């Protein structure tokens, strides 16, 4: 077998959308309406999906050793020198990449597919036919960037693609760029992301400066080596706000994720981003791009420190709770979904912060499926209702749109964490979110137990790895929870043994693997540095688990159930058959992704995380521990959260909006309601502080430039001019000119005297000539006489 065929396939999958982009840019206008769309679907995402499927199938057939071999042998092309450090470009081939690549291509393909129908209507609406192909060009470019981001082996390339997805997001949010609010939202998205990127760049600089590389694996190796020896970045005593340099590096990188994954202080762009066409919201602002931040944190997990993770979990926790609250009061169907996305992203980040590496990524993938489906469903509703997005005007649509309604409900159930506790029956969130909460619980309340368990596990964990099978071949496939646990403990650990270090480099720089005493050392340092999670974080996360089902059910009920509240909207409502195919496929994807394929793949990849020198990816072990200790009440407590949320939602909204209106007018509710409706006034504050503040400073600078700096130089110039005037008028006229003029006037005077004899009369001249001649003769004679007399004696 060609050792590089998977990498090449992935690379082809990345480049194909790029080709599609250029083709659409140049040839798009000539392709016409449906053709350009289908072209984009096939070349932009069909080919990558095929590649993804090829790689996935091949990958599943490989055992851990073969995978590790492929990872190690991956091609690295030399791209440039950063100073004297070479920057390489290559495909990071591991299970996480394969899983993400497949997820992205799969979802994107169906969203592309959906767009062909959806945009046919929507690009007409904004006239200009040229926009249709442009939409698919942008989507293709997004496909290229997103896939590039997923496969990047180097932080620098990750950053480059990171910015490119930001660009696509900008272009697509502002797709209806003749509308003010769309362009404003696009700009807001890009600039907010840039704020995050500012942190990312600082993180990159720290990585480059201290770890001397930008390659992800190499950076992690160097980080571990420096940690083990206490050199490099760890020898630096610099600290800011009480954070040591390695922590600052982690936080810097996380800042990028905060921007892209819209975490709390930088979340403001995502709700506004809903100004873009609905497929864009589904693809970019729900399923893939916003998850890139989570993906980044997962990728650089090995560079994290306990303090950095604490920071991350704090941010994630705030986001998940605060955004869920806002979602309760949203009336715009897309905004409601946007806030739920924010909240779910908060869960993922929170999970990573807790060390629930596998759970967070698993949640990323399940969320991608059901949120994409929810957004497409909302797109279907909006399309059917003639661009009405206000849920208060909907209601009773289930009869007109049965497929949409049902798939939407599946999404609602999945996000709410629907499942039957104690069994393995459930949907998406039931597994993934639940597990994040379990880890959080363990980190908050059972940290000592975890310590004990991990320490013993580490010591005893070396022998049984190699004997296990890969999780796909594991007999327990049908029971996701137990399978998952096994997968982590077995394949994950097993993978750690063989994968992460290239054999030839292992001797040089692999302090974190293979040697038991080293593991023990690592554990000791991890436990020394890690504090238990503050309990309020756990309680907020649990509370949100109750809020989520409430607002999701509220949205579903307001839209699909009850009596139609606006006859006009209801009358027009219809379903488009072409567009519900993706809905059904994604609903199927939601079901399947909850059980199959992704979880084991991620678990397989988790060796990356569990090799982290300073932090603990606690998944498997903690999970086991948590269940044995206190997971039962957690499982039931959270497990029925969805039911409680649903019941409240239905109770309030079953009979229209009257009850809700009354509640929100209660004297103690309305201030909160107002606060939530205004999104905590964060937009207003930002506008005042940042936008206005920045413009103020800019105007001051401009004023300074025009009136002060220029004034200085103009004054200098004017001074010179004065000096020139002085020297010209005073010095020159009376001094230098005086001399010259003096000469002139003297000669004038002299000539006036001399011109007297010049009468112009010939007679006078003759007289003068004769007189002169006479005088000369007389003179000569006199001289001659004198000389004659002188000679004579």
């Amino acid at each position, binding site marked *: 077998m060609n050792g590089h065929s998977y990498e090449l396939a992935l690379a082809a999958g990345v480049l194909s959308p790029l080709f599609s982009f250029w083709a659409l840019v140049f040839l798009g206008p000539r392709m016409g309406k449906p053709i350009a769309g289908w072209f984009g679907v096939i070349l932009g995402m069909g080919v990558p999906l095929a590649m993804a499927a090829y790689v996935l199938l091949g990958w599943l057939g490989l055992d851990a050793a073969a995978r590790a071999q492929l990872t190690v042998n991956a091609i690295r092309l030399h791209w440039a020198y950063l100073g004297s450090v070479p920057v390489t470009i290559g495909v990071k081939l591991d299970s996480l990449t394969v899983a993400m690549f497949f997820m992205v291509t799969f979802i994107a393909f169906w969203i592309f597919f959906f767009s062909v129908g959806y945009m046919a209507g929507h690009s007409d609406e904004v006239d200009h036919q040229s926009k249709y192909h442009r939409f698919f060009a942008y989507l293709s470019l997004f496909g290229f960037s997103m896939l590039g981001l997923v496969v990047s082996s180097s932080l620098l390339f990750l950053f480059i693609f990171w910015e490119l997805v930001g660009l696509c997001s900008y272009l697509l949010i502002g797709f209806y760029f003749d509308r003010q609010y769309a362009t404003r939202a696009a700009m807001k998205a890009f600039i907010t992301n840039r704020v995050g990127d500012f942190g990312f760049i600082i993180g990159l600089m720290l990585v480059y400066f201290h770890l001397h590389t930008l390659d992800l694996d190499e950076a992690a190796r160097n980080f571990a080596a420096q940690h083990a020896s206490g050199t490099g970045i760890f020898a630096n005593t610099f600290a800011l706000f009480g954070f040591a340099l390695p922590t600052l590096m982690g936080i810097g990188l996380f800042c990028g994720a905060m921007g892209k994954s819209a975490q709390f202080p930088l979340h403001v762009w995502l709700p506004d981003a809903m100004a873009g066409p609905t497929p864009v919201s589904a693809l970019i602002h729900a399923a893939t791009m916003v998850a890139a931040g989570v993906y980044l944190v997962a990728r650089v997990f090995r560079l994290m420190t306990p303090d950095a993770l604490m920071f991350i979990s704090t941010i994630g926790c705030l986001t998940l709770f605060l955004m869920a609250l806002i979602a309760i009061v949203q009336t715009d169907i897309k905004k409601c979904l946007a806030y739920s996305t924010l909240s779910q992203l908060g869960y993922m980040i929170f999970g990573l912060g807790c060390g629930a590496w596998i759970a967070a990524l698993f949640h990323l993938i399940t969320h991608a499926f059901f949120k994409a489906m929810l957004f497409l469903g909302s797109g279907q509703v909006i399309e059917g209702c003639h661009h009405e997005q206000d849920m208060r005007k909907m209601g009773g649509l289930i009869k007109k749109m049965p497929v949409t309604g049902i798939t939407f409900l599946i999404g609602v159930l999945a996000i709410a964490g629907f499942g039957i506790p104690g069994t393995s029956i459930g949907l998406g969130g039931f597994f993934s979110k639940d597990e994040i909460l379990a880890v959080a619980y363990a980190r908050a309340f059972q940290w000592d137990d975890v310590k004990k368990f991990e320490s013993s596990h580490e010591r005893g964990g070396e022998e049984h790895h190699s004997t296990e099978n890969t999780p796909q071949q594991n007999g327990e496939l049908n029971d996701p929870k137990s399978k998952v646990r096994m997968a982590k403990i077995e394949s994950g650990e097993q993978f750690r043994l063989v994968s992460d270090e290239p054999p030839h480099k292992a001797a040089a720089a692999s302090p974190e693997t293979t040697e038991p005493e080293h593991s023990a050392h690592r554990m000791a340092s991890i436990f020394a540095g890690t504090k238990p999670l503050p309990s309020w974080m756990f309680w907020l996360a649990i509370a949100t688990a109750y809020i989520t089902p409430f607002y999701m059910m509220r949205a579903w009920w307001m839209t699909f159930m009850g009596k139609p509240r606006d006859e006009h909207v209801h009358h027009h409502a219809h379903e488009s058959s072409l567009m519900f195919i993706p809905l059904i496929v994604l609903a199927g994807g939601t079901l399947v992704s909850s059980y199959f394929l992704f979880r084991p793949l991620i678990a397989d990849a988790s060796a990356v995380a569990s090799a982290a020198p300073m932090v603990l990816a606690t998944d498997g072990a903690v999970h086991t521990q948590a269940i044995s200790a206190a997971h039962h009440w957690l499982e039931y407590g959270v497990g029925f959260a969805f039911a409680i949320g649903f019941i409240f939602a239905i109770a309030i909204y079953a009979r229209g909006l009257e009850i809700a209106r009354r509640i929100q007018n209660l004297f103690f509710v309305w201030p909160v309601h107002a606060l939530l409706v205004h999104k905590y006034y964060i937009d207003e504050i930002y506008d005042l502080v940042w936008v206005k503040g920045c413009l103020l400073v800019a105007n001051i600078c401009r004023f300074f430039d025009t009136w002060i700096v220029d004034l200085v130089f103009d004054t200098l110039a004017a001074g010179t001019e004065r000096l020139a005037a002085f020297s010209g008028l005073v010095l020159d006229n009376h001094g230098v000119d005086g001399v010259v003029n003096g000469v002139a006037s003297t000669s004038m005077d002299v000539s006036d005297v001399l011109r007297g004899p010049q009468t*112009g*009369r*010939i*007679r006078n001249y*003759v*007289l003068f000539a*004769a007189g002169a001649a006479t005088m000369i003769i007389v003179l000569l004679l006199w001289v001659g006489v004198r000389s004659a007399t002188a000679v004579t004696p």
Partner: protein
Amino acid sequence: MTIGLTHYLVVAAVLFCGGLFTMMTKRNAVGILIGVELVLTSSILNFVAFDRYLGKGRVDGQITGLFIIVLAAAEAAIAVAICINVYKNLSTVDVDRATRLQG
């Protein structure tokens, strides 16, 4: 008494002085021209006389005399032409009134 060089020179001097006097006193351009001719004539006489008495058998003086006669003739022709033109333009040959070229 033999006629010697001195006599010639005296005659020439008289001619010269007459010419000079004429030039100085006449306001009529033609008169001045006549004075000029007299001066020229005196110089011719001098050339010839010196050649005759002091020359070493050569005829340089005579030739120069002839040359001056030709020159004088040419000069007279031009001068008369000028006079005529002055008269045509100014209706006078009084040199004191022909002051147009004066600065």
